[in-house]
């Protein structure tokens, strides 16, 4: 009797948040799906059925091809860069050096800044101006007589997106460092000692003992960084504004919907973004839920 009432009560108590989630998340996702299947263009809603035409048009749209290419470049540089830099930082901090706490905070700090702030700073650092107006990193390179390193950064044709990803690596590698450091600390010292006794050198220990044991950490980092890079928007706007060569799906969605009033197309881009993020996240959530249940 008591248990029944308790259960009744708990359902009642969480019902407002369930209701809110149903309306404001799933309700609006369904609405966006509906809009993406409509011919809505202009200020007034128009739900005329358009089947999958908005999606088909997008797959034929050269701008969307640029978006996909840019997202792939960004994801590649950002995810690989953050994981490699983060891992190396973690390994260095794990050597038990003096002032570890200080360096740990130092590397983690960029994460506390918003992408907009990072963007504004890196916009200045990556100034591509030439001649007497050279500034930022290019000027630093010229002082150091490393002129061959000077480049056009994010204004480089085709690969400009990689420069934007550099700023994101700077921001997020501290975070992957923290993940890896926690992972490294959880590896029992006996395992290393046993390997050393068996005659393994440092490199072999990392290759055969540490890295395999850290693979769950790498998976988490991959998922978290991966879904962030699919949604990247504010960093690009802060560094480069709305410019075609550095376009990504989120910027295209915003521009075409609110500047161009192509609501149907904007909704279609939104749904494609949602699907791509879901492809990454849902298997991960299932995996973590399963391991939690097992524990």
């Amino acid at each position: 009797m008591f248990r029944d009432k308790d259960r009744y009560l708990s359902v009642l108590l969480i019902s407002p948040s369930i209701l809110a989630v149903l309306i404001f998340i799933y309700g609006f996702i369904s609405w966006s799906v509906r809009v993406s299947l409509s011919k809505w263009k202009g200020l007034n809603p128009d739900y005329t059925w358009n089947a999958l035409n908005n999606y088909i048009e997008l797959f034929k749209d050269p701008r969307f091809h640029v978006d996909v290419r840019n997202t792939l470049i960004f994801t590649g540089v950002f995810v690989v860069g953050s994981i490699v830099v983060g891992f190396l930082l973690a390994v260095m901090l794990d050597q038990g050096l003096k002032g570890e706490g200080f360096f740990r905070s130092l590397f983690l700090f960029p994460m506390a800044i918003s992408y907009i702030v990072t963007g504004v700073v890196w916009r200045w650092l990556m100034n591509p101006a030439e001649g007497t107006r050279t500034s930022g990193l290019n000027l630093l390179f010229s002082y150091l007589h490393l002129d061959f390193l000077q480049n056009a950064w994010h204004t480089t044709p085709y690969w400009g997106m990689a420069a934007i990803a550099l700023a994101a690596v700077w921001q997020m590698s501290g975070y992957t460092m923290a993940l890896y450091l926690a992972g490294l600390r959880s590896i029992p010292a006996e395992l290393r000692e046993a390997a050393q006794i068996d005659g393994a050198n440092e490199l072999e220990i990392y290759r055969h003992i540490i890295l395999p044991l850290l693979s769950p950490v790498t998976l988490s980092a991959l998922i978290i960084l991966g879904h962030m890079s699919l949604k990247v928007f504010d960093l690009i706007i802060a560094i480069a504004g709305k410019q075609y060569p550095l376009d990504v799906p989120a910027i295209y969605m915003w521009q075409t919907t609110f500047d161009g009033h192509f609501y149907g197309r904007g909704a279609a881009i939104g749904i494609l973004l949602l699907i791509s993020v879901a492809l990454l996240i849902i298997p991960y959530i299932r995996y973590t839920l399963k391991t939690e249940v097992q524990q």
Partner: protein
Amino acid sequence: MSKKLWYSLLAVLMITATVLSACAPATQPPAATEPPAAGDQVEVFSWWTGGGEAAGLDAMIVVFNAANPNIEFVNSAVAGGAGTNARAVLATRLQAGEPPDSWQGHAGQELIGTYVAGGQIEPLNDLYEAEGWLAVMPETLIPLISQDGNIYSVPVNIHRANVLWYNPGILEANNIAVPTTMDEWLAAMETLKAAGVQPLALGEQWTKMHLLETVLLGTLGPDAYNGLWDGSTDWGSAEVKAALDNYVKVLSYANTDSASLSWQDASQLVVNGDAAFNVMGDWAEGYFREIGKAPNVDYGWAPVPGSVGVFQFLSDSFVLAVGAPHPEAATAWLKIAGSKAGQEAFNPVKGSICARTDCDKSLFGEYLQSAMEDWSTDIVVGSLTHGVVANDSWKSEIDTALGAFIADGNVDAFQSALVAACQNSGPCE
């Protein structure tokens, strides 16, 4: 036990109520309430929240209050994103059927293509006739702010888009006269390039669209340029191709780091002596003054080559909402916005000229006086980048086509994308 249950139930209800009330708009628009018995009110919506624009609006409100002491002026300005935020808020209010009495918008197709198509603004022909505005505004302006013979907005200020800013010192040192035709301009830039001077300063993508519209005008002339926007000039024609070829040539003289410069950065290169020419609207003049530069010493101006005698304009204007809660008060506001007193209060502060041709010249600086002279005598055509000639959808498609062209440099693909844009969202069949 049951008492506890009741308390919990009450708590749930209260939480639900809080959640639901949080979903409702935070403030009810004043439109929903009955007008106060003592007087009326008018709600005016804009994105003028800072700088000369907000100060100009305040000056115009003073004129309004003096003329209409019984009407309360409700200033519903929304800040952020050069109007992007405000337009999103406005769209939401219009979709909810709660329009403000009057709102600000760029005169021309940006307003007409969006709000006339949506049936949300009223024609103002009667007001224009009653106030005699047709006699004091340029004849060639009226068709650009009309659709099917109906005039839809009251322009408060005028900016000029086709201005070529130059550095007088650099031109003099290289013995170059101010160019008046495309060929002269291209020759001048070639000379400057050979002399090791940066010929043209250019900024991020929208400033490239601004340059494109002035080169189209400078090559095609006003009639064919106007024809682009009503469908009578073929976007696929040889003359448009010639204009695009000119555009390619002009672009080749620009700085390599344009994508990382704002319009201010680019214009500043001219007054600082780092570049010879820059094409930008005449708000650049306000910026030059702000950074302490003097007209005819640090900077000179001329119409963009090929467009002498043509005034490519853009304008902020106000409209009357369909279903305005206070139509009479809104009309009183529009009368002030179009009046000599209202425009003379607004424009010297904003750094633009009056839409009327009878404003007192002594209120304005040297550049603006010359612009007023041109405004009253030149042929008036509209700007693309600033919302006069193309609706938002068309403009955004042209922007995408331009972006692709800047990335790959393929003129033929650019021209066919422009043809397609006109067919999809413009008047072309």
